[in-house]
């Protein structure tokens, strides 16, 4: 039986599905018996999913314009 602290140390690999099947089995068994770790695991997984759905970032038009101007200056001065 894993302890909660052992579960926590494996949580990232567990959520990323990077654990061996043996360890995964132990982790899965642990969360069926420990409500605290189930909650931590479930809400951490949801946290990741929520952020995965974040809208892609866009930069303000003036920032983009200054970036392109800077790159074009470099291109002009450093022809390949």
């Amino acid at each position, binding site marked *: 039986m894993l302890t909660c602290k052992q579960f926590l140390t494996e949580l990232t690999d567990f959520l990323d599905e990077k654990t061996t099947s043996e360890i995964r089995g132990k982790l899965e068994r642990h969360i069926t*018996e420990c409500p605290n770790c189930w909650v*931590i695991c*479930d809400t951490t997984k949801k946290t990741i999913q929520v952020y995965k759905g974040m809208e892609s970032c866009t930069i303000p038009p003036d920032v983009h314009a200054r970036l392109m101007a800077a790159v074009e200056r470099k291109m002009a001065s450093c022809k390949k």
Partner: protein
Amino acid sequence: MNLAAATSGSGYLPGSTRDWSTTGPPLSRSSADSAVRPLTGGGTVFPFRTMPQTAASAWTWENGALRDMATDTVAAAFAADADAQEPEAPDDEVSSGGTAVAEVSRVAAPGSEAPSDELDLIARARAGDGAAFSILIGRYEGKIFRLAMNITQNREDAEDVLQEAFVKAWEHLDQFQGNSKFYTWAVRIAVNQALMKLRKRKSDRTISLDEQIDTGEDMVIREVAAWDPDPEQRYSRDEINGILTEAIDGLLPIYRTVFTLRDVDGLSTEETAEALDLTVPAVKSRLLRARLQLRDKLTRFFKRKGDDAFAYM
């Protein structure tokens, strides 16, 4: 964002013998009802009294917060992995434009795929095609700007970093060997530029993304409460975006950066390590801390209605 999809689902983990994804774990018990309590809806008896032998040995109250007693042990384990030969972040302009750029010859680890036309665009840009390079800029400028903001926390500095990163990328494009994704390579340049900005701002101390900040506080679990199945229904889209942004902005830069690259941008752990010049174990330890801290912050907003934190203790 599809919060509904993120918070629903028929099962939590494949192979789990007990599925609490729809019901949550057993409801909280009163002090008079501490022996056995049935699972909600399932009729199964959950032997609560047997659980605390595990849980109570690992979780305890401390200064008004639920503290994982594993923290010290976990922190010690993380300190050990962080001690394990973390490479120094490049610390000068030469390394950011030279060493760091040249080191991309390492074999890229599997991760999200770059667009199929990327190698062609890079080849054209390397031959002097500015239009091709502009397409690459358009593809990644937003992410690089967000990364720069994450590290510098300053819009003006972030804009400088953005410009310097792409100018250097153009300048050193012939050193890009195509073994890693262009984005990973660009991130590495941008991170170096951002760290240089921080050093200039705080010239009295060295700044790096791999510095030790093992206070233990960052592993404290304060909120243990199941989330509402549809928490987004309580908030507007703007409110959700605000909640997510505020939570991530509350992280320390090293956690914010690792989390953004790994979980928002979708780089693999290996690619994140390469981009930030960290070891894989160091990325994993920072990622775990970032995820736990964000989970903790979001629980305040998303926890199941009427479900008190610490209900399961």
